[in-house]
């Protein structure tokens, strides 16, 4: 398959801001200690160079195709159509099978690209990253193993204690895993620890797990990840002969959402939906629904964006069953797209996602990542509401659920 080349559709300004013209609100930027400014500049300049380097882009694409396996199929799911009311009532439902990627999620696309970039453009010998549930760590460690770079992963001590298939795989891939005992001992202090480590070792490169962090990371991650959407858009065109009416993706940091929806940013007729985790319910306060929950604008980990925080600006921990969504912020470009209304937001509770997980296993024979279940639930709801037999719906099945099996089996047994 010939993959459509990347085209910039929503460039931030030179300081890394996306500005909402109506409200004047800025998203993104580079809020970081001066110690990291030169590191970021190097990445920024390198990234600009890389995006003009045909040989680099061609070689990277070849690796993404043959190693990560990005040309995954799009599956028309008659099973989900039937659950939503039948094709004759609601149209057709398509699943982008990103669950079939190497290392089982969309993460390896930007992770591998970033590490490949670090090696070939920045000539770095070491990668620093952080992780919560280790999906990102697994992807980065895999890329480092293949490309022969050292890999240092920061993980909160509390997260490190949890049984985690992905953490174990990260270790098998040879990454050095450093436990972070600061503050809550979870993802946020681990991110800070990773940045501090980079501050001490500017020859290394920092890789972030989503389209978050200071400029140019949000831009870089969505640019790399958007190859998923470029392929999917072409596939949908081939399958249906037209643009989809809706595109649905879950949103933690936002990388899988921008990955699939980015190529549709300028297509007015395409309705893009980002789905967040409502945890125990938005009103409970125990959730990760930054945007649906109307979190205010703050400055977290180097960027302006919507942030879960208290009235003093202390960051609140997010709460969700899906460790991949357990993050108190959302990537700045996504927040911007939410503010313009181009991406509409919905949230699914943990309970709804868990039930969707069991349904997917039993009715479709697919073991989805729990993260993907938030989007499937919300998509089915929206599709039922729209009730339009002429519509084609595209859902991003962003990962497979091997690492969720233990908890989900317990849930199943406890609830049957």
């Amino acid at each position, binding site marked *: 398959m010939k993959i459509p080349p990347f085209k910039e559709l929503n460039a931030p300004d030179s*300081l890394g801001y996306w500005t909402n013209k109506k409200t004047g609100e*800025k998203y993104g*930027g*580079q*809020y*970081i*200690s*001066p*110690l*990291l*400014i*030169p*590191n970021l*500049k190097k990445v920024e300049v390198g990234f600009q160079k890389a995006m003009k380097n045909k040989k680099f882009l061609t070689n990277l694409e070849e690796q993404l195709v043959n190693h990560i396996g990005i040309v995954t199929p799009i599956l028309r799911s008659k099973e989900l159509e039937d659950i939503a009311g039948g094709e004759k009532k609601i149209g057709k439902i398509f699943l982008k099978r990103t669950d079939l990627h190497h290392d089982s999620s969309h993460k390896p696309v930007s992770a591998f690209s970033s590490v490949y970039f670090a090696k070939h453009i920045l000539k770095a010998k070491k990668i620093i990253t952080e992780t919560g549930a280790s999906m990102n760590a697994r992807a980065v460690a895999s890329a480092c193993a293949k490309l022969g770079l050292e890999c240092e992963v920061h993980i909160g001590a509390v997260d490190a204690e949890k049984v985690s298939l992905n953490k174990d795989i990260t270790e098998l891939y040879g990454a050095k895993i450093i436990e972070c*005992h*600061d*503050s*809550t001992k979870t993802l*946020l*202090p681990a*991110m*800070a620890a990773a*940045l*501090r480590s980079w*501050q*001490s070792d*500017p020859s290394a490169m920092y890789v972030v797990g989503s389209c978050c962090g200071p400029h140019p990371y949000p831009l870089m991650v969505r640019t790399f990840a958007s190859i998923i959407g470029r392929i999917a858009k072409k596939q949908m065109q081939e399958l249906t002969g037209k643009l989809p009416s809706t595109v649905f993706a879950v949103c933690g940091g936002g990388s899988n959402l921008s990955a699939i929806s980015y190529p549709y940013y300028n297509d007015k007729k395409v309705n893009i939906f980002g789905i967040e985790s409502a945890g125990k319910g938005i009103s409970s306060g125990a959730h990760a629904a930054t945007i649906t929950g109307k979190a*205010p*604008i*703050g*400055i*977290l*980990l*180097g960027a302006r964006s919507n*942030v879960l*925080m208290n*009235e*003093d*600006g*202390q*960051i609140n921990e997010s709460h969700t069953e899906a460790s991949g969504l357990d993050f*108190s912020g959302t990537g700045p470009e996504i927040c911007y797209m939410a503010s313009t209304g181009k991406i509409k937001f919905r949230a699914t509770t943990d309970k709804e996602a868990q039930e969707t997980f069991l349904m997917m296993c039993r009715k479709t024979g697919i073991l989805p990542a729990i993260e993907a279940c938030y989007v499937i639930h919300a998509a089915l709801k929206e599709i039922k509401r729209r009730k339009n037999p002429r519509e084609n719906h595209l859902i991003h099945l962003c990962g497979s659920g091997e690492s969720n099996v233990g908890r989900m089996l317990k849930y199943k047994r406890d609830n049957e």
Partner: protein
Amino acid sequence: MNKTFQKILAKAKSENRSCFVAFVTGMDPDYESSKKILIELSKYCDCIEIGVSFNTSTSDSSIIMSANDRAIKSGAKTGKIFQLIKEVKSEVKSDTAFVTMGYLNQIHVYGIDNYINDCKKSGVDGCIVVDSNNEAPEDDQIFKGLTKNNMAYIKLIAPTNDDNYIKQSLKKSSSWLYIVSYAGVTGSKEVNLDNVKKLSKMIRKQSKIPIGVGFGIKNYDDVKKVSKLADLVVCGSSIVEKIKEGSQKGLTNQNLAQFVGEYVKTLSEGVKH
């Protein structure tokens, strides 16, 4: 230049020494103890840098992050820190300069103008905002607000920053500039004098602004060495560690203040040239 800094820098010059700057996290381990510590330290320090705790800071060492945790647990908030500084100032007779050190998110949430107003009201002499990028609109606002109100805006410069960055920072710095002695985290390495020399030279080419140096200054000898190169010598982690040690011993209030004070006294004696 801010008046207090003018005074203390002049005084130090006249005494043929540098200024001694202590960093502590505000309200570590609690409001009352912190108040006593600040009052006690002001006896030995020309300037005290007071950390406004942010639970997701990106540049603090683990030592400082746990001080932040202790402070937040005992109720630290931006407003409370202003109250603390105000109360301390009212009891301190000497010309000790008080500087807040924090991250942009809290200032943003507090409201930048509101923050500057409250700095003014509580007698703050200057501010450090670790993650405020020179080019960010917020940074302009902070710079303008502080300048208008005669408070210092103290910018950090690292050995890895380039000429352009230094130029930008110099434009916005007032009263003094803070040189970070190495690319790393506070308290993680030894102070790097070569870096300091190199950076000072670069800065001196463009400006006469007083230079403070921090990162890795842990003992009397470090202070002594650095004070030969700097107008202000900043000690942080080792003092914060001392507070932790004292409070783990069960000391509170005045006893803790004395325990930390004795340590800082020794350190501060290093600034005599």
